[in-house]
């Protein structure tokens, strides 16, 4: 009974242009509501952290957001909050994402704010100390959080020392305590440049006008950043590796079981995505949800997650269980991994998960944020502007054998990493 065929974003309605300084602009109009969303990224991340300065990329951006030469902290946020808009930056391993949201007429203001934060941060000493105190408090909270500790343990077991996926994007209390103003300024000078930056604008603004606004604000920014070394190799896991982090007084245990997974550019990525959907996403969290939660009542939450970023990010099963049920849960997860490797997925189940992946596209693209995030994703991995149009066909082409092959290649039930954190007294009764 749908009355309105809304096209998926694609070459027909997405404006894409690269500016001479290396910034790629994407714009798509949506006049349904009077708002606009900006979503983008810079080529700067924790992989650029010097060896002894873990957390520098992220901390530099934290302080950049705390005031510019023209706009000290209070003024910066007064300009944004007083009109009901918002902006923010977030550092990852490879990129620093940024975003903003407001009413359509605020687009120039929001772009100018992003520009100012990127190019003219003040690095005021009192703001550095402010950001440091808040970050140290957050890191301290994480030290006592079972989910975070289980995830950290998994990364330490999976990735070799010195690998950007092992080190913490946020840094550690020790490294953060030692970062100096000069470190931040040098990092900013070296790494925050327009080269490779992507910016997508979606909302109640004409695409051409959005492009011109970006041009006007960013065109005089020049600069290049140093090339990055290739990511170090991640050796395959060769045995079961387990690390348990006791946290007294907690009542539930969190566990993360997984492997280094495929990158987004891996030729079998979509087969892996389909395998992951079957394993721990489809319906109420796939086969894992059925076994661990529904059949055995072991966990409130259990699911699987495939990162699929620029490198060998994790492919994981994640659960929160009673401390007495850890071993049983691990055994059930491994049974499901074996089944995915040993048995072809029945035709009906395969079709269901394919339908889910393709059918959920319109829902994921329901909001401006959803469209903008998808456009930056497409740009980042060179998927082509017609990616969404071709997506259905590509998912349809995946066979049960492809899924089984992907599971056999990436998921080994004899050799995996297992991070666990929870109360000590009840483990292994």
């Amino acid at each position, binding site marked *: *009974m*749908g*009355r*309105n*065929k*809304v096209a998926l974003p694609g070459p027909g309605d997405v404006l894409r242009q690269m500016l001479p300084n290396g910034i790629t602009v994407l714009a798509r109009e949506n006049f*349904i*509501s009077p*708002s606009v969303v900006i979503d983008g990224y810079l080529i700067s991340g924790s992989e650029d952290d010097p060896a002894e300065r873990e957390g520098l990329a992220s901390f530099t951006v934290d302080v950049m957001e705390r005031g510019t030469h023209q706009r000290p*902290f209070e003024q910066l*946020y*007064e300009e*944004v*909050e*007083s*009109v*009901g*808009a*918002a902006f923010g930056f977030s550092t990852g391993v490879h990129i620093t994402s940024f975003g903003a*949201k*407001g*009413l359509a007429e605020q687009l120039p203001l929001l772009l100018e704010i992003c520009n100012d934060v990127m190019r003219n941060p003040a690095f005021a000493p009192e703001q550095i100390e402010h950001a440091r*105190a*808040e970050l*140290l*408090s957050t890191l*301290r*909270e994480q*030290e*006592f*959080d*079972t989910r975070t500790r289980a995830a950290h343990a998994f990364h330490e077991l999976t990735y070799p020392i010195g690998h950007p996926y092992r080190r913490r994007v946020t840094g550690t209390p020790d490294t953060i305590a030692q970062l100096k103003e000069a470190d931040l300024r040098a990092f900013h000078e070296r790494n925050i440049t327009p080269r490779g930056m992507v910016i997508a604008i979606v909302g109640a603004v004409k695409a051409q006008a959005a492009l011109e606004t970006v041009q006007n604000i960013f065109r005089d920014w020049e600069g290049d950043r140093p090339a990055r070394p290739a990511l170090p190799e991640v050796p395959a896991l060769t045995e079961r590796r387990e690390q348990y982090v006791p946290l007294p*007084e907690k*009542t*539930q245990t*969190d566990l993360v079981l997984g492997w280094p997974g495929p990158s987004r550019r891996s030729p079998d990525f979509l087969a892996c995505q389909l395998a992951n959907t079957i394993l721990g996403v*489809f*319906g*109420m969290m796939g086969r894992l949800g*059925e076994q661990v*939660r*529904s*059949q055995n*009542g*072991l*966990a*409130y939450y259990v699911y699987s997650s495939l990162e699929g970023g620029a490198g060998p990010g994790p492919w994981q099963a994640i659960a*929160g*269980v*009673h401390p007495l049920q850890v071993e049983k849960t691990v055994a059930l997860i491994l049974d499901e991994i074996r089944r995915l490797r040993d048995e072809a997925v029945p035709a009906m189940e395969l*079709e269901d998960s394919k*339908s*889910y992946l393709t*059918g*959920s596209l*319109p*829902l994921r*693209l*329901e*909001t401006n944020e959803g469209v903008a995030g998808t456009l930056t994703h497409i740009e980042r991995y060179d998927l082509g502007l017609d990616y969404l149009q071709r997506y259905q066909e590509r998912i349809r082409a995946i066979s049960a054998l492809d899924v089984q092959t992907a599971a056999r290649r990436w998921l080994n039930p004899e050799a995996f990493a297992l991070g666990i954190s929870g109360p000590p007294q009840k483990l292994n009764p």
Partner: protein
Amino acid sequence: MNLLKTTLENGLTVVLRETHSAPVTSVWVWYRVGSRNEHLGITGISHWVEHMMFKGTERWPRQKLDQSIAREGGYLNAMTWYDFTAYFETLPSAKAYMALDIESDRMTNALFDPDEVAAERTVIISERQGNENDPTFLLDEELSGAAFRVHPYGHDTIGHLCDLQTMTREDLYTHYRSYYGPNNAILAAAGDFNAGEMLRMIESTFGRIAPRNTLPQVMAQEPPQKGERRVTVEGDAGVDYLAMAFHTPEATHPDIHALTVLSTVLAGGSGSLVGRGSLTNYTSRLYRAVVQSQLAADVSASLIPTVDPNLYRISATVLPEHSPAEVENAIRTEIDEIRRNPITAEELAKAKRQARALFAFSSESITNQAFWLGFSEIFADTSWFLRYLEKLEAVTAEDVLRVANTYMRPQNLTVGHYLSNYSEE
């Protein structure tokens, strides 16, 4: 706003909004039952019933339920809170009938299979234990318990562990049969459909369900608080937390809009009634008083629209080297100030601008639109939502001063301190 609102003969309230921004429809069924309708012994029962509703009926067995929606690329979920239990499906518009079929079926035909009840008991307890791992949950639970000594808002929706361990299948089924009926429900849908066609489908699926004869009423009224109350929770979170709560009126009370402005001035727009969560609050009074002054890592506030009077809560994460008492004192100084002098014209204008933006953001997704239509019917009616900005616009600085003095009195306050007893030794 293009709304169709009607009541079927069996008492089902229907609110429909056509919106053709995407080929998607979101269908919600809201029941007027939540932790408000529980007493000691069966706390958490509404939430557990919500879980059992996913265990299937004869026609829609458990796996078919999850898988049929997912197969179409849709998603379904549910939520239980103070005043309601709500179920929704968001899916391609062409499949909207499936949502109506599922929801009308499980309004009366859920099985509550004893084996499924047994399996779900451990899942629910696991959910509670996951919450317990979060120190702010433990603090909020104590704070609510102290603030309410009569009204059921004093216990958390998840319920007490002892009740989760002892409730029976019969308790659950009785609760379900008492509250799940068309005359205790609201069907709200938004999306790419024709409202007339949608209404006919609703009549054909829900129209034949007989109403419940008698619906249990909640009689509890919290007596006025006569003096400050304090609780302390100790644990190993490594960090201290502060929470403060003032009794505030029900959502339909005329003071609620002035309280929203008050909260926005104190702690930013994200704590207001509509559109929470998406703005920073770095220029708010409490942020300046406790975060800028380096006593706390963050501060936030929340005002929740409910059927009965509830709490206005302020929360902060205390920085090491400082104590919850210091943060509390700084916040109390700000509260004294906002009770003494009217807010400025610019603060008032800014609060209204933030509310307008948040309101616009809240209507962007189709799922959110249907959420607000149904949610507002729970604690008031859709006109509450539709007139929200207009009511907010009418708030004056004098109104804010008055409500500050009415509600933010020490005698009306409950304070909670979470003290980390972790030591490095």
